[in-house]
């Protein structure tokens, strides 16, 4: 029995909330033309609401249930104290336009996080405004564009992007009105240096590089790449999606990056929320620091009050207000808790966990780039002796073992990719459980492949017809559409 749609639970006249009585004289309403007649919202009780959403929650899988090795997403444990901190009335019931003297606590916290992110990355400045990783990425590319325009270099319109990049990188480039050129990877999973050199020119605006890249590999030539791009007059954009591998291991600014976005919801443990809210601050080198979006939190001197200012050559604001403050509180709490030592430990153990799993799983599935990996690695979901089994089948079968599947079919340069990121908060016991499940599934693929093709067997619902969803396009519930 599936859970009814909330509208289906309702009955005309039922209510879920009582409001205060009107205690002022009623005013004349605007003319009839401006008023609405029908307001077809659900009519349910509070009990209906709570039970409905609790039942829905029980159909979900989250980090608090078990391992969630979704590559590139850094599904680490979300500390509970951070939830309490963000809900303190002094943080949650504060309006963005309150006078500065009534929000010094918020501004101090923003300033503190800006400083911490600078310390971790080596950048000169940070803006907390972008709302998510892709948003930070768009921000960074706009900053690079603005930098060239400010120097009169309007002809620089090409952004170089490796073939292993996230899909957001090419889309971001287009949104900024620039053109992308794709670079090949070499046999070790690094950027192909010859291909890079062949494509650098006086039209190069910059390069977008994820390091460690989406194969989970640290590009061994990163310093050389940065130098080549800078020599050609371009700037380096760092996709910070994989920062969880290198805190205290390397500072992005020292690797030659000019701008990078941070994913507070990955690296700094803020919850993913079923798809958001994230937070994607950007850090900038000296060349770009005046171009960051604003406002940013500043302080005139060590004792003075905090205030918000717009940087001198800012690209402008990328959203209303100052960023996802509620997420910023959680990330700040996490960094305070771990300190420099804990952040380095988080990266070291994230890399240890990934290499440990890689060492076991490469014995049962092909590992296209057999090197020490960073915080994640990519296997090929092709099983000798089971030609009809695909990466997707392996993933769906993992659900039956109580584990969230890895990322499938990405990066694009590895056919049948299974991208596995365990994160540092998984214990050896939980990694061993995952490894055993994978080894067992590979055996099943050979002896009973239908178990995989028809998986999952123990989920709230079986495989869904995605083609039908796209063809018939039912995007909302309608009372008369029910059979």
């Amino acid at each position: 029995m599936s859970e009814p749609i909330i509208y289906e639970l309702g009955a005309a006249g039922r209510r879920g909330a009582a409001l205060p009585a009107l205690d002022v004289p009623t005013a004349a309403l605007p003319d009839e033309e401006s008023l609405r007649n029908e307001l077809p919202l659900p009519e349910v009780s509070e009990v209906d609401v709570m039970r409905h959403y609790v039942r829905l929650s029980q159909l979900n899988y989250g980090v608090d249930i078990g391992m969630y090795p979704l590559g590139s997403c850094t599904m680490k444990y979300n500390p509970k104290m951070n939830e309490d901190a963000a809900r303190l009335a002094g943080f949650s019931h504060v309006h963005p336009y309150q006078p500065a003297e009534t929000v010094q606590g918020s501004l101090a916290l923003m300033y503190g996080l800006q400083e911490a992110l600078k310390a971790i990355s080596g950048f000169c400045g940070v803006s907390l405004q972008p709302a998510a990783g892709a948003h930070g990425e768009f921000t960074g590319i706009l900053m690079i564009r603005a930098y060239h325009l400010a120097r009169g270099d309007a002809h620089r319109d090409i952004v170089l992007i490796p073939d292993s990049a996230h899909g957001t990188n090419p889309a971001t480039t287009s949104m900024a009105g620039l053109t992308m050129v794709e670079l090949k990877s070499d046999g070790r999973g690094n950027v192909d240096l010859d291909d890079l050199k062949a494509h650098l020119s006086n039209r190069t605006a910059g390069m977008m590089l994820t390091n460690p890249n989406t194969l989970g590999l640290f590009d061994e030539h990163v310093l050389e790449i940065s130098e080549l791009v800078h020599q050609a007059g371009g700037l380096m954009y760092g996709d910070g999606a994989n920062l969880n591998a290198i805190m205290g291991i390397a500072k992005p600014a020292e690797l030659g990056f000019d701008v990078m976005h941070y994913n507070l919801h990955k690296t700094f443990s803020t919850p993913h929320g079923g798809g958001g809210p994230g937070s994607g601050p950007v850090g900038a080198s000296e060349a770009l620091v005046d171009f960051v979006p604003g406002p940013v939190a500043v302080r005139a001197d060590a004792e003075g009050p905090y205030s918000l200012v717009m940087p001198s050559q800012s690209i402008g604001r990328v959203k209303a207000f100052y960023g996802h403050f509620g997420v910023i509180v959680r990330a700040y709490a996490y960094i305070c808790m771990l300190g420099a030592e804990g952040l380095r430990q988080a990266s070291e153990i994230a890399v240890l966990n990934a290499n440990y799993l890689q060492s076991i799983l490469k014995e049962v599935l092909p590992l296209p780039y057999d090197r020490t990996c960073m915080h994640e690695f990519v296997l090929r979901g092709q099983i000798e002796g089971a030609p009809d089994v695909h990466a997707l089948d392996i993933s769906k079968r993992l659900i039956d073992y109580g584990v969230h599947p890895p990322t499938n079919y990405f990066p694009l340069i590895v056919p049948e990719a299974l991208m596995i990121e365990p994160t540092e908060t998984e214990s050896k016991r939980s990694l061993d459980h995952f490894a055993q499940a994978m080894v067992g599934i590979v055996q099943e693929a050979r002896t009973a492949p239908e178990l995989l093709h028809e998986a999952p067997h123990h989920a709230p619902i079986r495989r869904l017809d995605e083609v039908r969803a796209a063809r018939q396009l039912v995007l909302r519930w309608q009372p008369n559409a029910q059979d």
Partner: protein
Amino acid sequence: MSYVPHTDSDVSEMLARIGVSDLQELFTAVPAAVRFPAIDLAAPRSELDVMQELKALAAQNAALDSTPSFLGAGAYHHWVPSVVNHVLLRSEFYTAYTPYQPEISQGTLQAIFEYQTMICDLTAMEVSNASHYDGATAMAEAVIMSLSAGRGRRNRVVLSGSVHPEYRQTVHTYTQGMDVVFVGEDRPGATAKELGALVDDSTACLILQSPDFFGRIVDLRGLAEAAHAHKALLVVASNPIALGMLKPAGEMGADIVLGDGQPLGNSLSFGGPHLGFFATRQELVRRMAGRLVGETVDADGKRGYVLTLSTREQHIRRDKATSNICTNQGLNALAAAVYLATLGKQGLRQVAELCYHRAHYAAAAIDALDAYHVDQSAPFFHEFVVSCPRPASEINAALWDRHGIIGGYALGSAYPGMERQMLICVTEMNSRAQIDGLVSALQEVAK
């Protein structure tokens, strides 16, 4: 405090299995010259210590649960039923990611599907996406969608100057690489009809806000016809609480209705995270950015939900995608849905009416003061413009210093020349006693 569960012997066993002697050996791919830099941060601290610091910071803010405030201007202090937060704290919701694996994400997917339905009902539109970052970015996406619907042959946008200034600034930031010409912003006093007359054959869209930034209910009649006569789209930003009593733009022929969904069950949180709702007509669905959930069936024919139309999105279309967005404001959209379900058909209307009548009570009382004047030339919802006897920023400072009241939004900061004007917002959180307190304080600080 660290969240790493490993014992020393776990680490040794794992290193041995990998075949390296210590953790540092895992990082030889990092150039030695830049490997293992020092991070200048404090030492690790306990949960107790960190929470005390955070409480001390929070205590430096004036929190609106205990401070009277008349600020609105795009972010609104509303009552949120307890049930909302209790649902948000279900960690099956908040510790999940984007529902890539629908078999174990039906909770998130169905909740979004229901959210999409409620947004359609609220706006009287045919389809809604799973939400954008906020109202400002939703408007920027509407501009990009309109340019795309114009197939790149239309590069003009008529944008009302009475749209929220930060929304307009965000639109300009987003489109700086897109060669777009904006008209209409220079005259915030322009009527909707005058703006409609600016639409021509090179116009991609006409954008208005109703209630507008000054709180005025805009007469949208005839605007869809004015836009459609030139094959341009009509885009309307709305306040979702106002839609509890006011006619939705969907009934007035709008092509895109969007806005900031924060008033629906989301806390102010110093400006974020909020959510941007975005609804359009069925025939434009393939041009709309953002995540979408659709209904389907599983292998047994049972009703279920999946992310759909992903062929519009960046991970498939890469540089041909019109937006790089790859998430929604999942938890904020969930809060909005739980709020709308709990308030329901009658409750939302009642909240809207409380806001409306209390705001009008406040406006009349302030207008009755000799030194102040309220602009009542157009109907308004729960915000109105007050002309003050001296700069609004000075009035606000005096209200705070002498009466502990946070006043309205000083309009001069966004509209030069309006230094004496203040935008006052009244919601169901402002009791009659609070309003009376504001009125007498305004009188006292007039001099």
